[in-house]
């Protein structure tokens, strides 16, 4: 039992698997064909039954005609059953027609003419037309109304009508059974059936093949998508899916995937750049220190020379340590593992702390740090992160300011949001480079040794920290007038 169940389950699983691996075009064709098959079957059935009922209706009419003829001949109505015996006339009348039958009494009933038979309520034949010969028409007892049905006589189908013969009081005394041959009509119906039965699978099969073809053609863009995607590797994201001619869903699918690829390529490119930049920035000081020391130890030298070179190496190492620290910080912030501790922070107080810390650097260049605007402003932020942001922007401003200039820090409220702007009087950043200032390792001054000592990571860290706290950072700059960095805090 258990084994049997397992077997069945396995079979089902295999079938299911086959089903799931079925190609889309086959499935579309199959669904379509099944739906159409039902429809066609229905139409065929309706047609068949309509034709059948029309045919039967005609035969029923013929039977009725025959019945009225019988009554006319017998000068009776079904109600006037008292003259029951006078059917004799009719019988004699039809006997003329059956003169041939008389030639061979043993001959079976001829089926190309109408048959008439009279029975009593018990079903005993009272009288019948001669052409019936030894055959008897089927009688269905107990019927109170005229009924029509098919039966056979000598293996050929006939349509029978069975009419109850009533007395004036409504008592059934017997039945008049009239039958007409249906030979030709049956052939028609059978032909129709054959046509339907043969054409059905043919139509369905043709339909399946055609739909499969059409479906295959209409999902061709999907094949394109697959082919393109298969060609794609991490290193080569430049491939794009060809857009189909029609602006349909597939067009949208293709263009959506293309847009996604653009983004991926961009991100990948940036990552590659970052790795290359980081590797360069790390390897260069390493190469400098290594090379300097290697050259230094090749020969004995003066004490002063040793001291100079070692000092130089220490400087390089310090720079490298700073870079590593910034890289690690960036990595930590970007891994999203840091949860900012958001609280209410007084912005002026935070600014005061940062300006106080940077005052010595500013004084060295005779730069004035001017704080203006609201004296009281509460923002929601992580105070340590906010401090880092402000220090980075402010020290940047000091770094790029000419000597004896002013760095203005403004706190203001705009549209219910608190904004902090830090403006320097430096040479400004060219417009075409403005968008890139937050990118990692980006420096407006391209030469790596501009003497400013930065790595181009500070603003990336600022951006990342701001994002974490939902603070918007923006920058605008005017040539030779200065640059403004603005922080917009989320409304409380």
């Amino acid at each position, binding site marked *: 039992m258990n084994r049997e169940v397992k077997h069945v389950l396995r079979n089902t699983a295999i079938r299911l698997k086959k089903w799931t691996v079925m190609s889309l075009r086959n499935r579309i064709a199959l669904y379509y064909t099944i739906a159409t098959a039902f429809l066609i079957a229905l139409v065929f059935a309706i047609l068949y039954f309509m034709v059948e009922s029309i045919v039967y209706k005609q035969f029923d009419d013929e039977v009725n005609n025959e019945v009225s003829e019988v009554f006319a001949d017998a000068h009776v109505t079904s109600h006037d059953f008292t003259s029951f015996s006078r059917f004799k006339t009719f019988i004699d009348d039809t006997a003329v027609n059956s003169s041939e039958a008389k030639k061979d009494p043993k001959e079976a009933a001829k089926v190309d003419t109408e048959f008439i038979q009279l029975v009593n309520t018990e079903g005993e034949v009272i009288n019948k037309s001669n052409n019936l010969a030894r055959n008897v028409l089927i009688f269905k007892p107990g019927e109170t109304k005229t009924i029509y049905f098919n039966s056979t006589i000598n293996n050929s189908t006939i349509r029978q009508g069975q009419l109850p013969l009533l007395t004036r009081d409504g008592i059934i005394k017997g039945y008049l059974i009239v039958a007409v041959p249906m030979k030709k009509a049956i052939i028609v119906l059978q032909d129709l059936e054959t046509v339907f039965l043969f054409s059905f699978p043919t139509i369905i099969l043709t339909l399946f093949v055609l739909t499969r073809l059409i479906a295959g053609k209409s999902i061709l863009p999907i094949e394109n998508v697959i082919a393109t995607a298969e060609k794609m590797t991490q290193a080569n994201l430049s491939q794009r899916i060809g857009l189909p001619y029609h602006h349909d869903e597939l067009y949208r699918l293709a263009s959506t995937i293309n847009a996604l690829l653009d983004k991926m390529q961009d991100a990948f490119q940036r990552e590659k750049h970052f790795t290359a930049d980081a590797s*360069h920035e790390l390897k*260069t000081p390493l*190469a*400098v220190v290594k*090379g*300097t020391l*290697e*050259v230094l130890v090749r*020969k004995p030298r003066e004490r002063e020379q040793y001291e100079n070179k070692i000092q130089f190496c220490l400087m390089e190492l310090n720079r490298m340590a700073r870079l590593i620290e910034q890289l690690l910080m960036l990595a930590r912030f970007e891994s999203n593992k840091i949860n900012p501790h958001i609280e209410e922070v007084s912005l002026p107080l935070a600014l005061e702390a940062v300006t106080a810390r940077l005052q010595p650097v500013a004084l060295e260049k005779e730069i004035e740090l001017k704080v203006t605007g609201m004296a009281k402003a509460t923002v929601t932020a992580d105070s340590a992160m906010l401090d880092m942001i402000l220090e980075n922007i402010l020290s940047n401003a000091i770094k790029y300011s000419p000597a004896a200039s002013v760095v203005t820090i403004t706190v203001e409220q705009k549209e219910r949001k608190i904004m902090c702007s830090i403006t320097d009087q430096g040479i400004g950043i060219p417009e075409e480079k403005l968008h890139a200032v937050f990118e990692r390792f980006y420096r407006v001054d391209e030469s790596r040794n501009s003497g400013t000592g930065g790595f181009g990571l500070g603003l990336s860290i600022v951006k990342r920290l701001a994002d974490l706290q939902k603070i918007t950072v923006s920058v605008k700059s005017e040539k030779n007038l200065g640059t403004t960095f603005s922080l917009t805090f989320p409304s409380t």
Partner: protein
Amino acid sequence: MRLLIIEDEPGIAGFLKDGLEEEYFAVDVAYDGKSGLDHAMTNEYDLIIIDWMIPVISGIEVCRQIRKSGSVVPIMFLTAKDTLEDVLFGLEAGANDYIKKPFAFEELLARIRVQLRSKHQGDDSLRAGHLNINPGTHQVFYETSEITLTPKEFALLEYLVRNKEKVCTRSRIIEHVWDIHFDSDTSVIDVYITFLRRKLEHAGCGNLIQTIRGVGYIIRES
């Protein structure tokens, strides 16, 4: 031997210049691609070391331009780029060698010497008759006795031996033995030649360096 270093990182350019000068090379340094290319086009160098990522004109482009001018001077790339594609790209641009940062100074030196070997030379040592010069150790032997030379004397002798059987004009000697900061007073060569001849004579190979009057000097093996 005169080298050009095109490298924007002063730290690296600095120790390269120091280290190579100690190895008796005359070294010029350019800090960006454009000035590097200018140097390479105006002076005759025995080898050029180029960093890939340098401002104004990239190292690759500098290398291409030098090759386009028809020069076959050995070019070495020095760079932090280290993928296989980068290496191939650099070599295809016309570089003779490629060394990745950070590198060992000794390796760089050895690779420079490989590039400076002439086609017929199996190793680094140079010969002229019974005179044997080892550029790696800066030793000069006549038969079995060693001759002690100053760096400049050594560089001068090395250049002449490398170009033996060819007349070396004074200006070419200046080009290859002194760096760019030397003002072109060619009489200094005659002074050094005199020193050299005296030392060689002392060791027993007096007539090695011959004067071509009004032109320069030549070393003939026979």
